[in-house]
């Protein structure tokens, strides 16, 4: 069975009340994966606007890795939304200031990534994007594309910014609101009050990608939202999907096969297949830019995990120091690890005082660093312990589960229990592959066993009974293969069908 083969269920048959959405929505999912349930510290439906912080730090590298050159001098006054850096030469790409104030520092050293620091003066408002306004939504595509390219939202193909692919190469657009992780921002909070704006964003995108197919995918926890959006959205050409909130459904590697039924090109990006994947916040930012003229200068960020006194969402300016956001809201007792976006794949924020939030930040998680195991930790019923296996009482009882960074066991040799294979979303055999890498057998064999399909979701490490970092070994194997000059055998998507410039060097 190919990895993109799906299990589909007719959603209309399952719940009668969803008849409206049932015309097009079905619950879809993939084989493998894992549903994280009932973790304590889920972000509540509560939003606090933080306004402008006293200073922001904005990186001078765009998501493609292109270095931007400052267009402002140290000490110069800037307004929120004003262009402060541009990509060199003919490459498109801009950086906007997220606050009004003055340029405090332009850091261009070898030790740290280039960045601009701006000291805010506290004045409200932002620089309105030229030509934007309610009438712009029905303006010619060229106008809309110019507004988007000036809005600071990166990676939207337009005729002014074709760095990834040309606007005419966009075949499909997927807008998704899937919460699949241990902690995810609240989709109802972000999308709930703004369904009309989301519908407007779809209308705008359809004007600039007239030939593209549109898909909107929500997880089953936001079923009613999808139903409402179904009525609010423009007619025709849009398919609505309900997805199981199963990790790692949110990744484009899984959205492509599940939503579109297309194989994902290992080591590349969805955009190289002509598929533009947008999350709800980005889609709403497009509406805000075109209709309200508001540049993309802030983000809604969830504060989740047991480390916060209250799990709220904040609206924060890009470039705000993470310590400014989490500092006053952390519990005073205990030591916590701050992780960006995902406990499974996110990076640890070791220096929150000098790390700013970026356009991709949507969740800051505080988990306790637990350096003790407790008494007889393997023996208790485990009311609050999460496990893929059904060996703890938490699998049967609805108690909230605790997340912490303890290993919960000692490393042991692999006993081939098969858990990693069962949860692997791309249907490879982690237990087998990790043995090859461990014994340094890096050759065609693991290539034939499809090691390149691995999407680094880390689920195999999560479920491992023997506490082996399976995913790290597989990553190592992929890196060594690439270093040894091996190339993927018969990739799922032939390279000649890929479009544009690869955003990152393919792993193989």
């Amino acid at each position, binding site marked *: 069975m190919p990895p993109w083969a799906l299990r589909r269920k007719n959603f209309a048959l399952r719940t009668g009340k969803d008849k409206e959405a049932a015309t097009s929505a079905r619950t879809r999912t993939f084989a493998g994966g894992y549903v994280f349930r009932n973790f304590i510290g889920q972000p509540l439906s509560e939003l606090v606007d933080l306004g402008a912080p006293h200073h922001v730090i904005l990186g001078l590298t765009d998501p493609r890795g292109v270095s931007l050159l400052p267009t402002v001098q140290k000490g110069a006054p800037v307004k929120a939304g004003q262009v402060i850096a541009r990509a060199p030469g003919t490459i498109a790409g801009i950086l906007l200031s997220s606050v009004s104030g003055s340029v405090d520092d332009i850091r261009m050293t070898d030790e740290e990534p280039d960045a601009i620091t701006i000291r805010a003066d506290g004045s409200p408002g932002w620089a309105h994007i030229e030509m934007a306004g309610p009438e712009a939504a029905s303006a010619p595509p060229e106008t809309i594309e110019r507004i988007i390219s000036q809005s600071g939202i990166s990676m939207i193909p337009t005729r002014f910014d074709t760095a990834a692919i040309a606007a005419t190469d966009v075949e499909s657009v997927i807008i998704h609101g899937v919460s699949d992780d241990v902690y995810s921002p609240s989709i109802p909070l972000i999308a709930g009050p703004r369904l009309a704006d989301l519908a407007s964003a779809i209308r705008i995108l359809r004007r600039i990608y007239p030939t593209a197919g549109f898909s909107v995918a929500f997880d089953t926890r936001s079923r009613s939202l999808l139903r409402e959006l179904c009525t609010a959205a423009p007619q025709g050409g849009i398919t609505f999907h309900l997805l199981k909130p199963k990790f790692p459904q949110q990744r484009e590697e899984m959205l492509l096969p599940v939503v579109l039924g297309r194989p994902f090109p290992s080591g590349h990006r969805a955009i190289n297949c002509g598929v533009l994947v947008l999350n709800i916040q980005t889609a709403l930012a497009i509406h805000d830019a075109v209709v309200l003229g508001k540049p993309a200068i802030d983000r809604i960020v969830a504060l989740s995990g047991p480390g916060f006194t209250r799990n709220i969402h904040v609206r924060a300016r890009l470039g705000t120091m993470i310590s400014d956001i989490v500092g006053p809201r952390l519990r005073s007792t205990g030591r916590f690890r701050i992780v960006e976006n995902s406990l499974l794949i996110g990076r640890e924020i070791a220096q929150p005082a000098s790390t700013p939030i970026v356009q991709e930040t949507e969740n800051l998680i505080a988990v306790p660093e637990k350096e003790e195991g407790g008494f007889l930790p393997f023996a208790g019923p485990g009311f609050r312990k999460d496990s893929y296996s059904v060996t703890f009482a938490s699998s049967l009882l609805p108690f909230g589960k605790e997340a912490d960074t303890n290993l919960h066991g000692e490393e042991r040799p692999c006993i081939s229990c098969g858990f990693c294979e069962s949860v692997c979303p791309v249907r490879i055999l982690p237990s087998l592959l990790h043995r090859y890498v461990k014994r340094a057998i890096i050759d065609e064999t693991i290539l034939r*066993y499809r090691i390149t399909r691995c999407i680094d979701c880390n689920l195999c490490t999560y479920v491992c009974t023997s506490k082996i970092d399976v995913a790290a070994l597989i990553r190592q194997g992929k890196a060594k293969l690439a270093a040894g000059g091996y190339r993927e*055998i018969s990739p799922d998507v032939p390279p000649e069908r890929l479009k544009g410039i690869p955003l990152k060097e393919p792993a193989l």
Partner: protein
Amino acid sequence: MNGTTLFERLGAVKPLRRFAVIFRTLDGILFGTRTITAGAPHILDHIELKRYMALVILALLPSTVAAIAYFGWYALAMIITSYICGGMIEVAFALIRKKSIEEGFLVTGLIFPLVLPPTTPLWVVAVGVAFGVFFGKEVFGGTGKNIFNPALVGRLFVTIAFPEMLSASWRAPFTDAITSATPLNLYRAGLSMPPIRDLLFGLTPGSMGELFRIGVIAGGLFLLLTRVSNWRLPFAYLATVVAVSALGHIFAPGKIAPPQIQLLTGGLLFGAFFMATDPVTSPVTMAGKFIAGVLLGIITVLIRSFSGYSEGVMFSIILMNTFAPLIDHMVLAVKYRPAKS
């Protein structure tokens, strides 16, 4: 990290230093791990090998309690002997390798006495478990690297080394009379069989742990439901036994026992739920588990019906252990065909 524990301090005392492995193991059992994740994934599943093996022991509890109830304190003495002798070998190897004592032995040490007749002398138990752990596991490099199920290696060894004790002297629960006839022997001799109820409760001669079949089934289902063992292999195994024996009984009723007799006699249920499912020695691939189950079923019925032995579960599982790598190899060869260029 913060402060050393009692066990760490004990392990640092000079004359005790060579036993540091033992202290580390004890510390792990009592107080868990003090290590935290190094990076993504930042949190880990709570399952660990201790929990995993503890669940298998829990599932074996009905069989164990029944064995002690049926055969008295002697059954308990056999279990204790097995744990002590096998445990000594396990600890000795842990000390030589300077690695923690691994949990898998807790299961081997319990399963081994449970597959022995209740009349087995204690010294045979000791020799058998020592042989099984040493030649079945340690010489291959320890947990996870063994080809054969260590408990079965021990059982096979004593069966061949001491045939008169291991396959000719049985005892039914609550009796003292030694008999040479298990229900499977009775069937082969064409004699009348005990009622199904007796087979379910295990009131017939047989190995200690396999008898209380209601408990074996409950324990086996428990393991399947908790995902500790994979359902594919036992399902395929039992289904094949039923299918092959149903078909065979039509053509050779005198030789091949009908399905209900096959299922409820000998070590079939115990073997299918607790021994064939050993993750280390059964095929890794999911398709391989099905194939192994089917082969096991066929071989078991064939041995039971046509060989010199009336019981075939042990031999078929050992055979399947041998072929497990080959089965996996073939499944992988089909699943990942070389690219057509």
